[in-house]
């Protein structure tokens, strides 16, 4: 067996030679195998140029620019019936080769030059035109043969692949059809003693590459448009005070996830109920694995069994999409597509790169994350984009519609990937026997991963880095057209439990006149970070970390909403960024996240036996008791607040016994000690003022409580506004962003 390469412009003139032209997709396989450094090729390519690059040659074969001939005729060719005629050509040839063949039969050369008589491949000079067969006027009458072949095609679990297409092909036989419901068929009328059999859809070798390239082309097109849009947006925001344009995020390990950069969590629905993805991941994996060896229908049935409408809704919400915009069938399809893509390294890498590039195109922030773990989200976004585009839902996230054009290419690629699992070829099968085959199991189910939110944490150690991060956030905010929460509700709760060890900076929203202080002349900077307590000058303020506020960038309205504080549109605000480490030294400051546990520790350590016994403090500083406390407090009027005696009368009327009254008073003492009132959530989180609804609290940010025993004025804290190593506070001017209604 030997192979020979030829340019498509040099097709041989003889029909017999064309019969040895290897189908381009098989040619890609053959050449790949021969040129693989990991195999020892036994079949040489006679005229292979050793200087030619492997990928270049494969590309040429894929596109039909070059063709491979197998002199033995054993390789799959381009004709169905071993007859060199246009009607016998297989249908999936590269356009370039198909055109060349067409030109060939039209009597032209492949290059379109003047037509020449068809000649034989003989090296002897032709004295007269070579023999040409008469044009076929009708299909020849072919006598059927007497040989049979039984076909059996099964899923890995042993059940038949019902209705699968098949092809049986020999030198003089060609039969195609579909298997019956049991995955079986008896093929009769065969002439050949030996045939080739294909179960399933044709799986041309080079087709995958072509489909990947088609998808890549579309991805590139979308990216190009996004980058152009971003450039326009950038031009419109250049007047913003961009003092820094550094890759602060990449420099400090920030990972701009698909979701954080693009904004999968871009509508309110998605943050209402961020559920436990781990549970749904296990359920999905379970449904997928249970049917991995079975039919496609088994997967859909299993999925529907595992995911009733409520579960589907929760999962889609957890992924950050509107559950009303996607059906269970669509979700099952998305998971299947994602799993097929996820199992194909090239396709997975392609989508991962796209996710990052698409995110990067939104602003100039550099992102280094490889989004391998978010395949399902990307696939779902693309498929939903198509669905949303069709129904023109105006409330759909902006980016979804941009992704809609990708759906067809993505589905085609997934379908072809699926074929590679479900198509089997058998060569040189003897007729008169049973050809049994089993298709491959489906790939592993893709993981629905929780986003690695810790990598989204802003980790800056200098004021310069902090300012740069805020400026980058503003660009991102403008590019997205609105606020996108940086963390989900669940992630916020985890961060609050983890503490402040990773947060160097805390921030405080201050009205400009507070910088100067009460009744102080403008520019005096005699104010403090909070209202001084009486005569001691001790300052206590509730705030949050720079990392938490980053998503709201430098818009005071967004920051106020996130922190759950009133926003005064007439006021001018500044953001005080406080270096927590230096503040501890200079202002004797202590910052903690006011969770139940932290406040319990605080009270029992700093004020032992003052509010109540340690056991009682622990008992009342719980979510359960907080609910009781809030309810009892609701009925208290001024008299009850002002007098312990009036309060005890009231508590008795509420049916509280002596022990319950003591517990209540213990909790009230803690409120007096720390300010943790009946609205205290105990999870270290603020209540978002805009997104929260009655009975449904949406958290805005992780909260901090700072007590400064030796507070300094802004003049001292900022080194007279000059900054430098003496300063431990940086004041940032805040400018509201108006996104319209």
């Amino acid at each position, binding site marked *: 067996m030997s192979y020979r390469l030829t340019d498509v412009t040099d097709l041989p003139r003889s029909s017999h030679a064309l019969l040895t032209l290897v189908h381009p997709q098989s040619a890609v396989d053959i050449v790949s195998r021969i040129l693989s450094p990991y195999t020892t090729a036994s079949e040489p390519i006679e005229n292979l140029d050793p200087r030619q690059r492997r990928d270049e040659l494969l590309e040429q074969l894929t596109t039909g620019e070059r063709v491979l001939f197998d002199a033995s005729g054993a390789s799959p060719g381009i004709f169905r019936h071993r007859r060199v005629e246009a009607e016998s050509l297989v249908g999936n040839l590269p356009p370039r080769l198909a055109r060349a063949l067409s030109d060939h039969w039209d009597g032209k050369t492949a290059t379109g030059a003047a037509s020449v008589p068809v000649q034989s491949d003989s090296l002897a000079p032709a004295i007269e035109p070579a023999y040409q067969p008469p044009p076929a006027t009708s299909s020849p009458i072919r006598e059927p043969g007497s040989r049979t072949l039984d076909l059996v095609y099964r899923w890995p679990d042993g059940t038949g692949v019902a209705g699968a297409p098949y092809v049986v092909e020999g030198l003089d036989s060609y039969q195609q059809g579909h298997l019956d419901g049991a995955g079986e068929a008896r093929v009769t009328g065969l002439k050949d003693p030996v045939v080739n059999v294909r179960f399933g859809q044709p799986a041309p070798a080079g087709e995958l590459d072509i489909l990947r390239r088609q998808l890549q082309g579309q991805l590139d097109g979308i990216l190009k448009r996004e980058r152009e849009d971003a450039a326009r947006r950038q031009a419109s925001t250049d007047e913003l005070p961009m003092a820094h344009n550094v890759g602060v995020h990449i420099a400090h390990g920030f990972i701009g996830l698909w979701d954080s950069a693009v904004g999968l969590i871009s509508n309110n629905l998605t943050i209402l109920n961020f559920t436990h993805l781990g549970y749904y991941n296990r359920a999905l994996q379970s449904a997928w694995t249970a049917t991995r060896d079975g039919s496609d229908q088994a997967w859909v049935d299993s999925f529907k069994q595992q995911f009733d409408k409520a579960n589907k809704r929760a999962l889609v919400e957890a992924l950050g999409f509107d559950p009303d915009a996607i059906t269970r069938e669509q979700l099952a399809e998305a998971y299947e597509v994602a799993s097929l893509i996820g199992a194909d390294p090239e396709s997975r890498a392609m989508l991962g790169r796209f996710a990052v590039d698409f995110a990067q195109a939104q602003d100039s922030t550099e992102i280094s994350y490889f989004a391998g773990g978010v395949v399902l989200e990307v696939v779902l976004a693309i498929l939903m984009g198509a669905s949303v585009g069709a129904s023109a839902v105006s409330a759909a996230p902006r980016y979804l519609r941009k992704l809609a054009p990708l759906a067809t290419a993505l589905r085609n690629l997934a379908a072809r990937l699926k074929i590679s699992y479900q198509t089997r070829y058998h060569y040189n099968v003897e007729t008169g026997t049973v050809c049994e085959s089993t298709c491959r199991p489906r790939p592993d189910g893709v993981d629905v991963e929780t986003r690695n939110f810790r990598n989204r944490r802003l980790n800056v150690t200098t004021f310069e880095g902090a300012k740069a991060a805020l400026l980058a956030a503003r660009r991102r905010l403008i590019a997205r057209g609105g606020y996108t929460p940086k963390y989900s509700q669940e992630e916020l709760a985890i961060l609050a439990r983890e503490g402040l060890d990773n947060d160097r900076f805390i921030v405080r929203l201050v009205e400009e006149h507070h910088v100067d202080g009460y009744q102080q002349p403008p520019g005096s900077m005699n104010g403090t970070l909070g209202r001084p307590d009486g005569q001691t000058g001790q300052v206590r303020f509730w705030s949050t970390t720079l990392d938490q506020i980053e998503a709201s960038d430098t818009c005071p309205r967004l920051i106020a909403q996130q922190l759950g504080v009133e926003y005064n549109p007439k006021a001018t605000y500044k953001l005080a960024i406080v270096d927590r480490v230096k503040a501890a030294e200079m202002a004797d400051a202590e910052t903690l996240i006011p969770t139940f546990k932290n406040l319990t520790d605080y009270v029992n350590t700093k004020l032992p*036996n003052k509010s109540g016994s340690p056991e009682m403090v622990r008992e009342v500083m719980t979510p359960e008791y907080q609910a009781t406390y809030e309810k009892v407090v609701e009925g208290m009027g001024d008299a009850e*607040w002002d007098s312990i005696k009036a309060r005890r009368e009231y508590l008795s009327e509420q049916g509280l016994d002596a022990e319950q009254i003591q517990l209540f008073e213990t909790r009230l003492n803690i409120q007096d000690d720390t300010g943790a009132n009946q609205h205290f959530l105990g999870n270290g989180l603020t209540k978002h003022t805009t997104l929260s609804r009655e009975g449904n609290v949406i958290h805005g940010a992780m909260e901090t409580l700072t007590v400064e025993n030796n507070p300094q004025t802004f003049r001292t804290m900022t080194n007279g506004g000059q900054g430098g190593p003496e300063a431990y506070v940086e004041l940032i001017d805040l400018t509201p962003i108006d996104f319209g209604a």
Partner: protein
Amino acid sequence: MSYPKLTPWPFIDPEAPPDGYIKVGESIDRVRSRTSQKIWHFFVTQGYFIISDKEWLEGRNGKPGKYASSQYEYPIAGVRWFVDTVERFFLPPDHPNAVPRGAKTIEEPVDGETLGVTRGAWYGGEHIPGYSFDNLNRLEHCTIPPDGPYCQMFKMGDPWLFEDGLFDLFKEIAQRHENGEF
């Protein structure tokens, strides 16, 4: 650390104190006088400093109204100690007599009882910080049961203490005691 609790001091009527109770002053907690004026009376007797109030509680749910009292008791020497200790909170952190960094309360024995001064975020009412004068050997009590499971803490907001003259009254009482008036 827990402290042994002394037998509760009997309640007195601050408007008609028993014999031997010398009234040394009174002060109004204006912040907490939203529904009725909260007048606190200060007495000295038998070497003790007594803080007491009397309040009319309106009847509820058809029940008749009644008077009720709260009361706090300290060794008389505690008044000077309270004044001095509050002033320690005002010293710069590096002063040798300043309240230690991070401390929110100071507790020391005075004439056999452990007294304390504590800084609290809302000791003067909602969002009003203040100080409390504590006796860790005595349970919080008023004429409406139950007694508190915690120690006596007479809580005063900064405005009351420093703007309405209460702190000056404490100073005056301490001075009068040192002058031998009682």
